């Protein structure tokens, strides 16, 4: 099994199989997004309270979901990369950071677009919104640190520590913010009240969530492939690859 993992993690094989995996993930993302978007925009009913603006949720919720998933995956990949010195893991971690940050931005932006008609304000200091904003700061810190360190290997290990520290802190930050909010705002917070979400809304939401996840996987693999190529540019197989394309 170790040899199998070892081979899976070698940059050359990764470059090979990630191309196929990314291609399939693109297809899956597209295939799920088409019916998902159709159902979200036309087929699912408008909410009895929120009207048509409930449809923002079909983008907002998957984006928020992935923004958190991406952080956990980034921390996991960075740690694997640091502990076992797997370059491919590090590349995946670095690829997760900007994508996760953009999902966070997307969640915040769609949330405020939804908040304006619903809450009457672009921004409310609600616990969830605030934790999402702090998550964005954590991503930006990670990216800034990764860019500030010249040497790739040093940068990889330093950012892995930062991601781990962030991972330990995320629950603490989350609960402190939640607690702070209940302290100051009390029951005025309007939340998406959905005691049991109806199938007509759940199914497009799930489709969109799966599609977003596949899209995330595809983009991360693509970015990781670029980084692997750049990192391995002096190795034999990359030269062969380039020369093969030239000839």
């Amino acid at each position, binding site marked *: 099994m170790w040899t199998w993992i070892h081979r899976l993690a070698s940059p050359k094989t990764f470059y090979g199989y990630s191309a196929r995996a990314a291609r399939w993930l693109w297809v899956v993302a597209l295939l799920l997004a088409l019916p998902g978007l159709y159902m979200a925009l036309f087929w699912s009913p408008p909410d009895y309270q929120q009207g048509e603006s409930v449809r923002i949720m079909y983008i907002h919720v998957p984006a928020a979901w992935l923004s958190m998933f991406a952080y956990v995956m980034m921390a996991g990949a960075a740690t694997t990369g640091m502990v076992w010195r797997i370059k491919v893991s590090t590349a995946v971690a670095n690829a997760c950071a900007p994508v996760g940050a953009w999902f966070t931005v997307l969640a915040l932006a769609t949330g405020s677009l939804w908040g304006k008609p619903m809450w009457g304000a672009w921004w409310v200091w609600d616990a969830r919104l605030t934790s999402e904003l*702090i998550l964005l*700061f*954590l991503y*930006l*810190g990670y990216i*800034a*640190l990764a860019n*500030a*360190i010249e040497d790739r290997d*040093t940068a990889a*290990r*330093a950012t892995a*520590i*930062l991601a*781990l*520290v*962030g991972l*330990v*802190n995320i629950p*603490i*930050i989350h609960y*402190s*913010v939640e*607690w*702070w909010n209940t*302290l100051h705002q009390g029951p005025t917070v309007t939340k998406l009240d959905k005691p049991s979400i109806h199938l007509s809304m759940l199914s497009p939401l799930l489709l969109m969530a799966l599609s977003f996840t596949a899209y995330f996987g595809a983009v991360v693999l693509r970015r990781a492939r670029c980084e692997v190529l750049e990192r391995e540019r002096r190795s034999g197989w990359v030269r062969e690859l380039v020369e093969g394309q030239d000839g």
Partner: protein
Amino acid sequence: MGNSGLAGMLTATLRRDLLLAYRHRTQLANPLVFFTIVVTLFPLALNPEPQLLGTIAPGVVWVAALLAAMLSLEEMFRSDFDDGTLEQVALSPYPLSLVVLAKVAAHWLVSGLPLLLLAPLLGVLLRLDTVALGTLVATLLLGTPVLSLIGAIGVALTVGLRRGGVLLSLLVLPLYIPVLIFAAGAVSNAQAGLEVTGQLALLGSILALSVALAPLAAAAALRISLS
């Protein structure tokens, strides 16, 4: 370093850092002056109405404390990194994380403790009542060591970089948020005559967690910066 062994090494580190800080007394005062000035800016910017001051005081004092802590953080490892002392320490047979803990303790004694002494005075300026002043000191006592501990990780990660200052605040400030929330919340509660033991207990547990974990992370980060 007279006596050998781990304890000797740690006390020597502590004594050395404190002595170094004492020899640069004027630099010591800078974060304190900064702390005072930032707190002074708020009544000037908002308005000096006592009721408003009382409402914002816990937050203002704590935000100023965070910023003042940020200012002094870099000195924790900077000069030792530049002159190679840190490399020698890392090569020594003693666990680096404990040495880091000793350095953090020295840093806190030099930068956190004075804030603790100065804060009641600023609290009076901002019209905090006696109970709230006591709580403010208690939160600072529990919270400022956390600032030094978490800050140590950030400094350890950025000490090898030429312009680490802004990056350091970007890395560290989001991690300070829980401390800020609980501490400022406790002082506000005390002012409203509510119970504060919950927040203090949470601050204490954050402190315990950071004492246990932050030196390990900071030591690992230092090894990376040194390599």
